[in-house]
């Protein structure tokens, strides 16, 4: 069954994400510190300090300058250790910012460039993007019709599955919408993103975005990518102009996760692996798969903090031997770690 690595976007991050893996998986820690070494001079502080020293997972972690590189570092490091354990993605799928992680893992962008781009774009958004609120709204598939009068200054920025959409808009407009949703008893949750991604609020940033994107050196992709904007599969011709435009489309226009996944599973069965910190994309897939589907979905890490167990389960779901974790990778685990006759 072809394996799809899925990389989640903004608001899937939290303090202490992957903490147990960072403490006990030497290679995960090494890759995180490698990314930290790249990011630290750009943001003026240590990513690993931000993530693992201060705050628990309930402490707000929503400053774009920090969360952008942190998510990419985390997703890249997690993908690397999965691949080092023998996992081989057949497709890469990036949700919003996850598109950058996918490009890096697929070899289209150098890690250094990807992190730098994420940091530079965060600076542009922080300096020029008007503040906004992003809201996950549950159980109102026809939100545009039901709240037609309340949606001025708001846009649907993502469709995750039928009963789960994201709405983004100005702080004022979203306050009004939330009042109505609360009145109607509609479940909703504010996301840890303070800008209106995937809406018209991004439009004024296009020039500066494209100026940054033009500096990217894009290499041929080694693994095909699935676009969450239109569901198309890109096999990776290195047409830099096409890549720039596609990146902008990804950040500017709504995420169509629902139709992207449905389009894929219409063509066959897939194993969807959520290589983000929250397992949200695996959950979305769960709700998107038809009842009789034999496609599978797995999270690699989730916010419970039991990272090793979740990670090992994910490896096993792909038929891979996972080393038994003790307090650390001590010699006694060698038999299990390399005890393979394959």
């Amino acid at each position, binding site marked *: 069954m072809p394996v799809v690595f899925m990389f989640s976007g903004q608001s899937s991050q939290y303090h202490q994400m992957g903490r147990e893996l960072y403490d*006990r998986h*030497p*290679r995960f*820690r*090494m*890759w995180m*510190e*490698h990314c*930290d*070494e790249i990011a*630290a*001079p750009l943001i003026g*502080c*240590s*990513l*690993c*300090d931000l993530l693992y*020293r201060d705050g628990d997972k309930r402490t707000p972690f929503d400053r774009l300058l920090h969360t952008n590189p942190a998510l990419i570092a985390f997703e890249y490091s997690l993908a690397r250790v999965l691949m*080092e354990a023998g996992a081989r993605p057949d497709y890469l799928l990036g949700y919003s910012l996850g598109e950058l992680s996918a490009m890096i893992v697929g*070899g289209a962008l150098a890690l250094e460039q990807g992190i730098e781009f994420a940091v530079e774009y965060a600076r542009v958004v922080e300096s020029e993007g008007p503040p906004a609120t992003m809201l996950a709204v549950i159980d109102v598939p026809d939100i545009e019709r039901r709240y037609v009068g309340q949606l001025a200054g708001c846009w649907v920025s993502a469709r995750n599955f039928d009963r789960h959409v994201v709405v983004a808009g100005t702080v004022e407009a979203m306050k009004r919408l939330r009042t109505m949703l609360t009145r109607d008893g509609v479940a909703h949750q504010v996301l840890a993103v303070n800008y209106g991604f995937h809406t018209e609020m991004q439009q004024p940033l296009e020039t500066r975005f494209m100026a940054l994107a*033009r*500096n990217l*050196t894009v*290499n*041929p992709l*080694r693994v095909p990518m699935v676009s969450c904007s239109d569901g198309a599969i890109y096999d990776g011709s*290195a*047409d*830099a*102009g096409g890549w720039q435009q596609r990146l902008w489309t990804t950040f500017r226009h709504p995420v169509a996760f629902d139709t992207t996944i449905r389009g894929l599973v219409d063509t066959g069965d897939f194993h969807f692996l959520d290589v983000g910190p929250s397992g949200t994309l695996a959950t979305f897939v769960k709700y998107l798969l038809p009842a009789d589907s034999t496609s599978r979905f797995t999270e690699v890490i989730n916010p419970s903090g039991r990272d090793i167990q979740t990670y090992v389960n994910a490896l096993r779901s792909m038929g891979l031997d996972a080393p038994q974790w003790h307090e*650390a*990778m*001590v*010699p*006694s685990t*060698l*038999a*299990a770690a*390399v*005890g*393979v*006759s394959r």
Partner: protein
Amino acid sequence: MFPGQGSQARGMGGILFDAFPELTAKADAVLGYSIKELCLEDPRRELGKTQFTQPALYVVNALSYYKRIQDTGETPDYLAGHSLGEFNALLAAECFDFETGLKLVKKRGELMSQATDGAMAAIVNATREQIEALLKEKGLDNVDIANHNTPLQTVISGPVADIAACQEIFQFDRVMYVPLNTSGAFHSRLMIPARQKFEAYLKKRKFAKPKIPVIANLTAQAYPNDAIVEYLSRQIHSTVRWSDTIHHLMALSDDMAFVEIGHGDVLTKMILKIKQIAANAAAEPAPAVRGAAAETAAPVSPPAASASATAPAADATVDARSVHNDRFARAEQKVADWNSRHPVGTGVKSLVAEYGHLVTRTPAMVLFGHRAAVYMEGFNGYFDLDELAAA
């Protein structure tokens, strides 16, 4: 020092083309296209293609050099260039003129771009000796060392399948494997056909002897007189001995100042690493401490992981290096000791887990370059020698 392939980026050269209109026009005449447009706009997305990358870098390096001489009035005491950059070092030493050098580079770029059946990858945090030992152990005889950039950064080059096979081998402890996006296996045996054609091309020309010493990629020593044809042709399929080149230069003077001429700072970063590694090697911790670290095989994480962001990297690198070397030698020793005392078929037991009576099926061997292990009968797995005792 002049950088080589990998330092190119759109926009490089900036105002230099307008500052040197005559040289720019000469370059256009040799190349048959606008070098300024290629470097600044790259409208046809060619800058990443070897046959375009090499002339573009040569021109930007050369104009940067002339600009620097103009601005400072200083001339260098020594010259060196990384791979393609060596042509700029020889140009600065007046072995040939600007146009001749550009013609050579154009030819070289064309020949190298025709080799499209290879791949390259960088391996970081392993020593060259470790890499060569592991390649030998795994029977990857077709993989060559393309660049030895720093004591802990090596680029390998060879057939696509062999380079891909290296990925699994070079991911242990803090060793990083990074595939590179090159069109071919530069500086490897696969480039021998290109070398032969380039040599024939070089032989038709006359070169002056260097007026300033140029440290050669091939030998990490100064170019002898009359060696240009041989050195430049062999350089195509030989290791770029950059780490040795820098060490050679550092040994010539305590206060050797290194100036990178061209776009970017890739060589400057390498020198920082080389100096850090040298400084840290001079101040290694006491052997007892290193022994303890190796003994527990604990995750090799920087001791200052929670300290400020920029500092730990260097420490981590050096920690990894000393621990690596130590563990590598210790593993070899353990294997030799074991095999001298325990023939295949020895009954053993595990000291850490209840596996019952075990019987070895192979001699002990070094795995991953640093783990002393033996394959166990009926268990389908390797056991670390540290956890075994004779039954």
